[in-house]
Structures are given as C-alpha cells and as structure tokens.
C-alpha cells in the first residue's frame, strides 16, 4: 500500500517538475495576476517553450522564495519592494544597482514595464473633504479615524512602521485586513483609512480620495521583471520577447486592466490577451455574468476537486504513518510523552502562511510544500488520540496481556491497538476534516484545490467565485466526516461496538 502511494505521488508530481520550461509566478492581487498572464502569453507566443503561470503565490516572501529556489523563473515585482523589503537598502537604489545586488543570488532585475504602482493611503472623498484632509500630514491631525491596513503593509519596513515614523502618525498599531476586503470595509463605514495601490481599479468606484505623500516617503514602485539569471541564456527568444514589454504598460492602462478584472469580471487571461491584441480561448471563471451554478461546476471543478482530495488524503496518509507511531511512542515511553505532545502542539499553532513561507525554500513552491504543511497540521489530532486511546486502556487489561506472556509488539498489535482503534480513528477523522479546510491555503502557493477559487474570489472581491470554492470545501468536509463514520462501523471490532460494560468494571 505504501509503495503504491509513493508511486502515485511520483507520477502525480513528475509532469509539474520536468515538463515545463518557463514558470511564471505572481502575487496574490489582481495586478500581479494580470502581469503574470501577460508574461506567460508573451513567452508562450514565441513557441520556444511551454509557459506556465503559477497564479497568486501569496505575499512577497513566498514568491521571492519560490524564485530563489528555482520553482519559478520570473515574476512581476516593484522596484520599491526590491529595494526596501528584499534587499533592505538604506537609500533608494536604481535598477542597475539592484541588478548588481541580486546577481550573487543568481537573480536579475530588468524590463521596467512603464508604470509606477506605489503605496498610498486613501479614505472616502466625502469624509476627507469634510475634515479637510488632503495629505498624509493632514491625517496626523485626526487620531480619531479608524485605520485598517493590509497584513503585508503592516509588516514591511517600507510600509506602516516607516510611514508612521516619518509622519508621526498618532495611531496605535492598526488592524490588519485582507486587501481584497478593505474597499468593502470602507464602503460600509467600518474603517476610514486603508492602504491602497495607486493603480487599484476601485479607487474611483468607491469614491476614495488618494492622500498625497507630501514628504515623499514612498519610493518609486516601478513595475519590473524579477528573473533568474539563467533565463536569457536558456530561452533567448523568450527573453527577447519579454524585453519588448519595456515601457509598454502605462499607469492608465494598468488601472484600466485592473478595472476590467475587478469591475467587469473579465478573466486575467482574457485581459492579457486583449492587451497583447490577440484572441484567446481563456477560461472565464471570474466572469460575474455567469450564474453561480455555472461557476460552481465550471470546467475546473473536477481538476480542483481531484487536487483538493489528493492534498487532503496524501498528507493524511503520511500523517497516519508518522502520527500513530509517534502516539505509540508517547504512550509507551513516559520520558517521551511531554516532548512529543508539546512539539506537535506547537506545530499546530504556527500560522499557515508563515509555515508555507518557511517550507518553500526546503520543498519548492506548489504541491510538495502544501503537502508537508498539511501533513504537519494533521499530526496533532492523530498523535494525541493515539496517545489517549492507548493510555486509557484499563490497567487490568494491559496486565492481563502482559501476564499471558505476549511479547511487547504482539501486545500492541493484538490487544492495545484494537482497543484504542476507535479513539485513533476519531483522531484521523478530525485531521481529515481539518485538512479539508486547511487545504484551501494550498492555492496561495500554487498547489491548486478549491482554495484557487477562494483566493481569486478574494483578490477580485467576487463573492460568487469565493463561494464556488468555499461551498465545495464545506461539502467535502461533510462527506469526509460521513465516510469516517461508515469506516468506524466497519473497522471497529464487534465487541467494542456498543459501549461495553466490561471495559469499565
């Protein structure tokens, strides 16, 4: 059985590892998705290579780790992010300098695309007018305003910490909010101020005033291509085609394309094709004109379902193979109990995106990292229940087994594991159900599954797409639960089926 699973995993991953020659990455927001599509289609048009776009790989840390690790070859990045966040330069550097700094890592930066998408703060036009706020300095006079910022902006040096210092902004650490949700939150009056990108499509739609960075805190966020240095040699024609993108995308054009995605619901592939003046038979899952049911059972439904189920059950399989022995170890060796239970407990508390960012340098972007993360999350319920199931066996039964003269392994196999089977199975069930939910994060690192719809729904602020991912995940969780209940009846020895009085007495 184990060998079968191993073969299957190899077959499952082989195509993604060897068959593709150019892998494009993008971060998890509309503009990055669109630029990623443009890069992919430009590269694909040369016929030199098969180009693949791994969409929405999460935040800068994850995409950069993916590039450095060789899981992707190129992705759209911004000069300011490179400067401050990745290279941590004290003073702003130009593209040539950045290129030199990146060379030791085997990376390069080139092809400024032509627009500057800097950070800014925005608030509702009406409110800004009433309070007379035009600039960041004006904002400092209004500590009563409710401010919420995207997680990434809150954390990075060129984001909130620096901005607050530069303008002496009188706010305590603001709340974190997903960038896709912040416009809704402003529209509903839940927050007053949030960070935006200056090419965001929704600025006009939600009638926001973009405040002026009067002390020029934010550096230039010119869009550029960040790539692996071997790319130009490896695929010269493709690289030449990509270089022609230089200066082709104006700020206005970018805002328009962002609006096409977020307000008109066009797919990223369609928008990219439109930009490159060609027709593309692109999937239109993000199209709001489609009914919810069409979205739910779209072309990608079975692909996503297969991916999701594979993620859940492969990681669960390894969780069982490792978790049950760990639980046995914890139950049998008193000195090992606390260390084992503590470690698997701590793993459970690591936030999923943090865990993924940590795993990507080790296991590459995509399915392997997602599987390892899910495997780690699956451990706690399995280990804990195995430990509890074995420890709760009445000592009279353990002694009876011992007194019979059965060796240790036989006692475990013939007596203790069958007696603990129900508790162990309950732990596996808990892990499986939790994994169905957690597996939705796999999409953030390009491992697919229903999370793809949730991620793009969040990025596009499109609730129907989001639900088309969340509902199947919930249904799958229920099915898994039901499946395990059936398995319970089938696997648990008949003598244990109804609560037995002999266990207690």
């Amino acid at each position, binding site marked *: 059985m184990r060998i079968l699973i191993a073969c299957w995993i190899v077959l499952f991953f082989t195509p993604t590892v060897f068959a593709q020659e150019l892998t494009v990455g993008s971060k998890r927001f509309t503009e990055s998705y669109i630029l990623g599509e443009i890069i992919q289609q430009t590269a694909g048009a040369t016929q030199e290579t098969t180009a693949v776009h791994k969409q929405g790989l999460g935040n800068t840390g994850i995409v950069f780790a993916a590039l450095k690790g060789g899981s992707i070859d190129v992705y759209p990045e911004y000069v300011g992010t490179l400067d401050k966040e990745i290279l941590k330069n004290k003073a702003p550097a130009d593209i040539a300098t950045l290129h030199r700094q990146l060379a030791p890592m085997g990376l390069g930066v080139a092809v400024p695309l032509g627009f500057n998408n800097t950070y800014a703060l925005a608030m509702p036009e009406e409110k800004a007018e009433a309070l007379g706020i035009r600039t960041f300095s004006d904002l400092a006079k209004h500590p009563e305003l409710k401010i919420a910022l995207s997680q990434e902006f809150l954390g990075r040096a060129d984001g909130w910490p620096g901005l607050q210092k530069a303008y002496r902004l009188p706010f305590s650490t603001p709340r974190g909010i997903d960038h896709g949700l912040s416009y809704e939150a402003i529209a509903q009056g839940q927050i007053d101020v949030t960070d935006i990108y200056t090419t965001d499509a929704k600025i006009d739609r939600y009638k926001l005033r973009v405040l002026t960075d009067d002390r020029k805190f934010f550096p230039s966020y010119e869009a550029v291509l960040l790539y692996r240095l071997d790319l130009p040699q490896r695929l010269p024609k493709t690289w030449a085609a990509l270089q022609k993108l230089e200066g082709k995308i104006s700020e206005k054009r970018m805002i328009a394309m962002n609006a096409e995605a977020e307000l008109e619901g066009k797919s990223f592939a369609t928008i990219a094709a439109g930009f490159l003046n060609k027709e593309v038979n692109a999937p239109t899952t993000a199209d709001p004109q489609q009914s919810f049911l069409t979205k739910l059972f779209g072309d990608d439904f079975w692909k996503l379902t297969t991916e999701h189920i594979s993620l859940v059950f492969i990681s669960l399989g390894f969780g069982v193979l490792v978790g049950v022995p760990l639980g046995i170890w914890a139950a049998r060796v008193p000195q090992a109990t606390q260390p084992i239970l503590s470690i698997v407990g701590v793993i459970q508390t690591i936030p999923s995106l943090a865990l993924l960012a940590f795993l990507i340098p080790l296991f590459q972007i995509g399915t392997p990292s997602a599987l390892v993360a899910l495997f780690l999350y699956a451990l706690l319920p399995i280990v804990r229940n195995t430990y509890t199931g074995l420890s709760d066996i009445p000592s*009279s039964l353990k002694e009876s087994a011992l007194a019979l*003269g*059965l060796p240790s392994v036989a006692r475990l196999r013939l007596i203790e594991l069958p*007696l603990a*089977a129900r508790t162990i199975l309950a732990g596996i069930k808990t892990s499986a159900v939790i994994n169905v939910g957690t597996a939705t994060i796999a999409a953030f690192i390009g491992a697919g599954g229903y999370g793809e719809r949730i991620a793009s729904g969040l990025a596009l602020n499109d609730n129907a797409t989001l639900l088309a991912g969340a509902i199947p995940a919930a249904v799958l969780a229920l099915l898994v639960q039901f499946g395990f209940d059936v398995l319970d009846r089938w696997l648990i*020895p008949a*003598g244990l089926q109804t609560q037995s009085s002999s266990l207690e007495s």
Partner: protein
Amino acid sequence: MICVENVSKTYGKQTALASTTLVFQAGATTVLIGPSGCGKSTLLRIIVGLIRPDRGRVVLGAQELTADNAEAMRHSLGYVIQDGGLFPHLTAEENVTLLARFLKRSPEAINQRVTALSDLVQLSQTALSRYPKDLSGGQRQRVGLMRALMLDPAILLFDEPLGALDPITRSELQTQLKNIFTDLKKTVVLVTHDMGEAAYFGDEIVLLREGRIVQQGSLADLLERPVEPYVTDFIRAQRSPLPSFEEPVL
C-alpha cells in the same frame, strides 16, 4: 513449587512488602489473605513478574524469574483476576485461544483443548462465541479460567477471582474450582480477603498485615495456635453468620 526468597517492595516510603520468604508447595493450594493493602496482591504480582521486587528472588519450579525470561515463564503460569480480565474486542473463544494461536499451536490441538476446557468449566458453545460484554459475571470468570488453563500450566495464580460475583454464582464457582484444583493437581496460589473462601480452598493459609506475614499454616494452626491476638481477631471479624458455612472450617 514456588520459592519466594527475601523479596521486598517499597513505593517511596510506603512498604508494600517487607522482606518475605515463602515456599508454595507443589500440587497444593496456598491462600494469601489479609486486609486491603496488606501486600497479598503485591506478592502475587511479583510472582507473575508484573512487579519487579526491590530485593530478593522468585524461583518457579527450578528456574529463577528474571526480566529476560519473564515472558517465557508466564507461559507456564495461569493468571486469573477479578472479572476474568477478558479482552473486550475478542470473543470468549478468541480470548481463550489468543496465546496458543500466537504461539502457532495447531488448530486441531487448540480445538481439542477448548472442548476439553469448556467441559471442565461447564461453559456452553454459544457462550464461547460471545463477546465478554454479552456474558454473565460467572461466565466471564469461567472464560478467564479457561484462558489461564489453555497451555496447561503447572502453576495457577488467582487474584480475588470471585470478588465481583453474586453469592449464588460465587458458591457454585467455588465448588467447581475446588474440584478442578483437586483433579488437576496444580500448584495454586489464591489471593482473597474472605476468610470463608480461604478456609474452603487453602491447604495452607498465609495471613499478611502491613506487608508482613503474620502467620502461615493450616486453618487448624491459625484457629488453635494463633501467634498473636490479631490472627483470632481477623478470623472472628470475617466469620460467616451462617453455621452451615462454618462446618468445613471446623
């Protein structure tokens, strides 16, 4: 024959068993009796090897019991506890044959032995196919006894075997057990706190108190030549109110 030589066991500052030397005669039934916490169960569990003594040694037959040979030695011991100690996930028959099957005894030999044993303890074929939860207390105890006798061990050890049974079943089983002991000529050690049971079974009675042997001898010895007033007190306190039950005692 079982020899216990200078065996002692303490838990922290609590002496469970002070240095004790005892010989259990082959083919005879020895009863360990005393109030709760007197060390009788500790002594029995040391003989089974469930507890390692702090000092001293246990010799079963001709071999000293060690950590290394405990597993194999247990195959020549039958151990029965209160309520039988049956495994709830196995049927009565599976409980009885578990060890024999593990040791790869032939199915024919196992079947023959099960038939013989179920005749001996008077357990029906239907009861054998049931799970422990579907058996009565007396049936469970019979299955426990069959399991202990399966490999025909020379030594049988009982830890309060009849404690959980109602009086009628208990007396029935007592009679049956006594006959089996007489017929099979096993070396039997039986732990109880019931003087009537001790009197009924014991060729030799060992009275313990606070981890020490107070007196060892036949029932007559204990009744007629108590070494200290406690022996008489203990027997009195436990004496059955029914004159008929006292007959075998006198």
